[in-house]
């Protein structure tokens, strides 16, 4: 009987795992362009969800329009954060940049607390809630929507990074920012746009998340830990790796949470990060680890 639960737990793990993967993907985009891990990314994701809440519920706009606006707002936020807060300290040690990113996250969280306190908010589900039964296993519409979105975004990112001139440039900027400047790349603009794209992707993750779990100001912290764990497990900088990492993390936390102790649902992300950094710092698919913090 207990074993029969496993497939259903896996489905549930895939759902949350794909969301971790999406947060990890958004962090990977920033990392692959700027070598910075954005420790404010969890809060940027929830900021995207709150922005959608304001546009969709507060202003009563169509949900799709609200999401597009929220993505735009977060792109602008990422862009401005890079320009106004990170660029002036671009030559500082990586630790300073990481702290700045963290501070931005805390500021966003503080803003959300001022407005919403500790209320649980939810985003309206813009698609019918249903489920697909496959024998004994039930696959909710949420899972299908989330998996579909994340795979689509992964595909787009893979094509952009691996098969376009823009992807080659990104690789060049990552390998040698100074070299990229020497071939005429506007590094400031490149980095700012990367932060914008990262924040916008995070917003999509935040919206999908806030449809299935209650949105609170502190959600960002948990999101960050899961996204970071997905990145660490998959290998920093690897797009496919972060998705596999997110999936494994999601599935593992559900299985451990059910079969061992429910506290594992909260701590698997931390455990994975610790174990990976100790045992295999390059992750499953990373070639080498360059996290300068």
């Amino acid at each position, binding site marked *: 009987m207990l074993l029969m639960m496993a497939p259903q737990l896996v489905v549930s793990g895939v759902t949350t795992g794909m969301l971790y993967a999406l947060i990890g993907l958004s962090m990977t985009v920033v990392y692959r362009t700027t070598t910075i891990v954005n420790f404010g990314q969890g809060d940027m994701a929830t900021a995207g969800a709150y922005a959608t809440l304001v546009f969709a519920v507060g202003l009563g706009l169509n949900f799709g329009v609200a999401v597009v606006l929220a993505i735009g707002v977060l792109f602008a936020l990422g862009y401005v954060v890079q320009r106004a807060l990170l660029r002036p300290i671009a030559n500082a040690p990586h630790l300073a940049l990481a702290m700045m990113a963290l501070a931005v996250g805390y500021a966003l969280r503080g803003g959300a607390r001022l407005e919403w306190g500790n209320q649980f908010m939810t985003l309206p589900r813009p698609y019918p809630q249903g489920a697909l039964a496959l024998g004994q296993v039930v696959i909710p519409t949420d899972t299908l929507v989330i998996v579909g979105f994340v795979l689509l975004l992964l595909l787009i990112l893979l094509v952009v990074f691996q098969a376009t001139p823009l992807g080659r*440039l990104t690789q060049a900027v990552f390998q040698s920012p100074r070299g990229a400047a020497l071939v005429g790349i506007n590094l400031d603009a490149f980095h700012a746009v990367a932060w914008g794209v990262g924040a916008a992707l995070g917003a999509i993750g935040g919206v999908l998340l806030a449809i299935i779990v209650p949105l609170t100001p502190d959600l960002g912290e948990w999101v960050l830990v899961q996204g970071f764990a997905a990145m660490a497990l998959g290998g920093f900088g690897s797009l496919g790796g972060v998705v596999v990492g997110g999936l494994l993390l999601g599935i593992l936390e559900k299985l451990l949470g059910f079969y061992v102790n429910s506290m594992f649902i909260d701590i698997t992300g931390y455990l994975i990060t610790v174990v990976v950094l100790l045992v295999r710092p390059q992750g499953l698919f990373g070639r080498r680890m360059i996290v300068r913090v």
Partner: protein
Amino acid sequence: MPEPLLTARGITAGYGSQQVLFGIDLDVYPSQTLALLGANGTGKSTMLNTLSGFVRPWSGSLRLDNEELAGKPAHRIFRRGIVQVSQGRDLFPDMTVEENLRLGAAIRRGPVGQLLDNVFGSFPRLAERRAQQVRLMSGGEQQMLAIGRALMSQPKVLLLDEPSGGLAPAFVREIATIIGVLRSTGVTMVLVEQNIKLALKVADRFLILRDGRAFERSDMREGAISEEEIVRSIYL
């Protein structure tokens, strides 16, 4: 004398509150090579970085083809045709020779095949290693690649910062030959070089910097100044 292609007037610059350049004037003529000479810490590299926009001048004028460029960001100056080969070379280490060269033409539109053929024609050794990862190449080969990558953008003025720095003597000779070839094909260059023999061999004119000021300038072809006199004016 033809009109200078690039002129700098009264350039002052520095880092933080530390002033390094105290009013430098220079002229670069088409198809000629100007060598900036001087001891360590006299502002040669700072001057070169000011020409390419990586260091913003505090004051002064920098004109290319009569267009004012002082204060413009590096990527805009690059688009106008002032292209630098840095002292550290700053290649893309995990890419191949060909990928590095193609990135040299990254901001150009249109096919780069002809440019690539030209560079491989000038540097047969790069052609042999076109698929090799740059990380695995020797310092001399990397220097060649750095120069080749800069040529891919068809610069109007090529800035070379210590091209012989840290290279074995055989490679220094090879770099000298390369610079000679570039000069004979009409590439306009500004060269910062510690190796005075190399500089004097390839330069048409030189400018000696001392403590951020232009100390002496001369036209090599007038033959009025010997190597010994130059060394003396640099170091004594």
